[in-house]
């Protein structure tokens, strides 16, 4: 099986217990695209809304003859106004995401892709439009889109040590999902969130971390290297560094949380040692949130 098929299968498995996800749709007027978020008023859409008496100006073909035949007056059949929400995702595929501390654990990147694709599966089933940031896969509906996203997510050819969020191609008032370990430089994240907030894009920031990164269980003389080996740091007594490292990690999370709060985003941390299901549930609820 090709990597994207495997990835998609895993994502489908993960998504299968949850009902289709309807991403909360706001500012619908600006993204006039047919979708499934009912506006509780008559308009374009597939769902029946109401019968109303024929008014002046109604075209003859709009009259619902079956309803009209049951009474003396003529009625027009109106449908609910439905629109679709666009959700754009960015999943980090840099070197740091290819890290797994134990051979029994999956890499952070794999977990991130699976979660993202699972959310995509749920959204697409609900009829939403899902895409990736940048311009590789603009938001669309349907199974084909899922194939496309899976193929693009399976690409692991990024050589950089740490990824930078891609904020291009975000439609105004759409929704966004950024998945990364956010270990790299914080400025691009800040910039991306600012840009998103400017466009009225609300979203979710999911930080995926390896358990080892959370605990720092090292002792003795150690040389730490980044995944590509570009960065290295040598210590003579790793156990002394634990507290400092943990402080810095907490600072980083705090910073991300503040950024999110400022931009109206949701922030969550997930460890690859935990169940993917719980992370998916959290994502589900965060995207559903209005």
């Amino acid at each position, binding site marked *: 099986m090709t990597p994207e098929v495997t990835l998609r299968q895993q994502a489908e498995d993960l998504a299968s217990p949850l009902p289709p996800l309807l991403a909360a749709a706001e500012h619908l007027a600006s993204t006039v695209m047919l979708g499934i978020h009912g506006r509780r008023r008559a308009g374009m859409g597939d769902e029946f809304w109401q019968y109303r008496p024929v008014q002046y100006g109604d075209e003859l073909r709009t009259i619902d003859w079956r309803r009209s035949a049951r009474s003396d007056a003529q009625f027009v059949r109106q449908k609910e106004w439905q629109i679709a929400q666009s959700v754009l995702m960015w999943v980090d595929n840099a070197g740091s995401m290819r890290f797994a501390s134990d051979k029994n654990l999956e890499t952070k990147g794999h977990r991130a892709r699976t979660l993202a694709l699972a959310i995509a599966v749920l959204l697409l089933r609900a009829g939403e439009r899902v895409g990736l940031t940048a311009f590789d896969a603009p938001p669309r509906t349907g199974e084909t889109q899922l194939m496309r996203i899976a193929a693009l997510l399976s690409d692991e050819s990024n050589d950089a040590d740490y990824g930078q969020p891609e904020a291009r191609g975000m439609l105004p008032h759409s929704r966004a999902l950024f998945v990364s370990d956010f270990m790299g430089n914080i400025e691009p994240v800040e910039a991306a969130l600012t840009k998103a907030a400017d466009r009225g894009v609300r979203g979710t920031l999911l930080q995926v971390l390896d358990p080892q990164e959370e605990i720092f269980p090292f002792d*003795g*003389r150690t040389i730490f290297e980044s995944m590509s080996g570009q960065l290295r740091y040598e210590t003579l007594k790793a156990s002394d560094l634990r507290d400092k490292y943990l402080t810095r990690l907490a600072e980083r999370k705090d910073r991300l949380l503040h950024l999110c709060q400022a931009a109206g985003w949701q922030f969550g941390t997930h460890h690859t040692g935990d169940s993917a299901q719980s992370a998916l549930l959290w994502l589900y609820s965060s995207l559903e949130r209005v």
Partner: protein
Amino acid sequence: MFTIGALGFTAPWLLLGLIALPILWLLLRAVPPAPIRRRFPGVVLLLGLKDEENQADKTPWWLLLLRTLAIAAVIIGFAGPVLNPQEERTGDGPLLIVADGTWADARDWPRRLDRIEALLEEAARRARPVAFVMLTDPPAGELQFQAADVLLSRLPSLQPNPWTPTDAADWAQGLTGSFETFWLSDGLAREGRGNVLVSFENRGPVTVFESPRPIYALEPARFQDGNIVITAIRDNGGAAESVTISARGLDPAGIERQLAIATAEFETGAQRAEVELTLPPELRNRISRFEIPGMRSAGAVTLTDDALKRREVALIAGREGREGLELLSPTHYLEQALEPTADLIDGTLEDILLANPDVIILADVAQVSDLEREGLLEWIDQGGMLVRFAGPRLAASDVSRQDEDPLLPVRLRAGGRSVGGAMSWGEPKALSPFAETSPFFGLTIPPDVSVSAQVLAQPDPTLSDRVIAALADGTPLVTRKREGQGQIVLFHVTANAEWSTIPLSGLFVEMLERLAISTRPAMPDAEDLAGTVWAPDQMLNAFGEVLDATTLAGVSGEDLAEGQLRPEMPPGLYAGEDRRIALNVTQPDTTLTRTAWPARITLEGLAVVAETALKGALLTGAFVLLLIDIIASLWLAGRLTGPRAVTTAMVAVAALTLTANDTHAQDTQIDALALDATSEVVLAHVITGNRQIDDMAFAGLLGVSNVLFQRTSVEPARPISVNLETDELSFFPFLYWPITTDQPIPSDEAYARLNRYLRTGGMILFDTRDANTASFGASSPNGRKLQQLAAPLDIPPLEPVPSDHVLTRTFYLLQDFPGRHNSRDVWVEAAPPDAEQIEGMPFRNLNDGVTPVVIGGNDWAAAWAIDENGRHLYPIGRGYAGERQREIAMRFGVNLIMHVLTGNYKSDQVHVPALLDRLGQ
């Protein structure tokens, strides 16, 4: 070689390496442990941090000490340390190694071989040509000097000989050339030893190796005043000590075992110690040899021969009860002749036959009953010897007149004859010389022996073959007939002096001896043995082991009488025509004396102090230290606690603990079961493999135990679940075995255990739990399974519990045995067919033991089952009737356990009225 005390070094210069240790110490201190490289994305967060401490590059002192010790062990190890280094013997040129190779060597033969091996290895190192000679088996011709390696390969096959050197002095005289001699002496002085020594000294220096251990030997056992006297001898008159002597022989089952044991006490300075052994004749005749246990030497073994055997002779006379006429008693002379050498038995013929004597003598007995005749014939057929003496009764009877009596060798003419009396013609007849075919051949006939009356044999075609002694006129005096493996001998005269003077002469005793009725003196002299050939039957090797010797050639009687052991005549048992003679290493007058070597001879002990090379141990120690160092280093470097630590630790620990042994744990487990099962009465159930059934069976037994505890004096402990495959069953008086269709068939071993359990009084309650819907037939699944399970079991015939079975009244009076179901079909061992109800008794006197099985299908465990709080686990029946049924089920359980524990005690209660009646109540 450089030595310190008992420690030597083969390469002492390497020890200088120890000087380098302090330098190593400094070096090790300076070098920090190698860093670990780790991939870690979180490294960005670390950038810019600084180490507070710099301790990791200082190795802790104990690790340094460990490493230094390891290095020191390696250095010392390679320096080749040797414990007890051997001093090299000087000398070169040809070397002769001489061993005595006698029975006295056999006791510490392995040590001698070790010594010879050490000498040979030494010679091999110095490239000396070596010859090896055993004086008991000197080589013919010149000495062959060979490379020591060749001799080394032959060494393991060397065996000592059970004889002593005979012509060693002559052989040593014939030696030529010059060589050094190493003599491994057995330590016993013997003739010609000085000459041998002189011959060796003429050829070169002589060193003697001798063990200071005392040498013990046993003299041939002899018979004295009805007791066996065994003499132990030793070669030095040392301190007082005691030597255990064991008498060995075949037991009635034909297995050789120790029959008696005696202790000979040497007094201080004494070289001999005697011990007397009093044994019943049956036991005494079984003894085939005496030995000092634990002493592997032919000297410590003495074989016994017929000299020690006393034949059992039964005397039966026709006339009894004539008091006061001892000299006229038909058996008086026989008793006198036989008493010193044989064991005499009195009694009726029937009793005597049971004792299975060697000889039965019937003195003037004409008729025996048919029963006695049959017994006698059978006994003769199996090798008994029946000797009959004639007399007035035999002469007057009609026995063997027309037809030959089976118990007489010839037909007899009526009346007999009397010669030389007052009323008859002629002189009393003398004996004619014995024919060559007669067993009496060679006995001298005293001139004053005469026969005045005899019974006459009818002339028959077979008569001449059967005559073994005749009178001068040719009439038979003694006739003999062989019958099966035995023989029947008839003396045609009386056993007393009425008819002849034979019983008064020495000839009588000799004739009895020749007939092997009495045994002869210990060792026949050379004249007796002249011209005879003796076949070796068993032989002794130098180690005192008895071997089969039937392949050896026979030896002449003269040689045997001389008693000089040779390769052709090893010690052993020699069989002649009618007796066996034992030839032992020692003679009755043997004395053991230490060799007194002249002062000029170097005397060394046998002990070889083995060189112990310590190199291996030291290097192993260094290796272990380094392994410990690995673990310690890993721990210090954090690799034992970080990721992948488990694998690292496992590898390290596996390297240290190479072997693990958990059999001990298993043993203690079995012991624990035994303790649990035997410290109190415990009920047990068989584990079926079905969890639910097993739990129910356990709960059921818990319920019964509880009820027993409350109502009876039986106080069982918690029940035990028994695995038929692994657990020992014999601890349990009672097994409950619920049947499920899916339980596995036990293995053969388990069935063997079950059968042993049933035979030794265990009881199994089989419960098909199906209410006997098929009425104990084959059609219910559980019933079929039960048949399958019970097929290999040793189960007696069964019957439904009869109304008077002891099970109905061991504690409660019961007629029903319900469980959860209330079926009446409960089967127990069938009563014997002859069990009958005695008049006035309420029940029959049934089988004595406990029935080994009770089979039913009432699902008793369900009715009995209680939980830990004592509540019943399963509902039984409905309402009060159900509770009543449960109560009866409990009572059945009580009765069953009582039956198991008390057996037929209640059955015996029927006798109480009778017993009370007899007591006069």
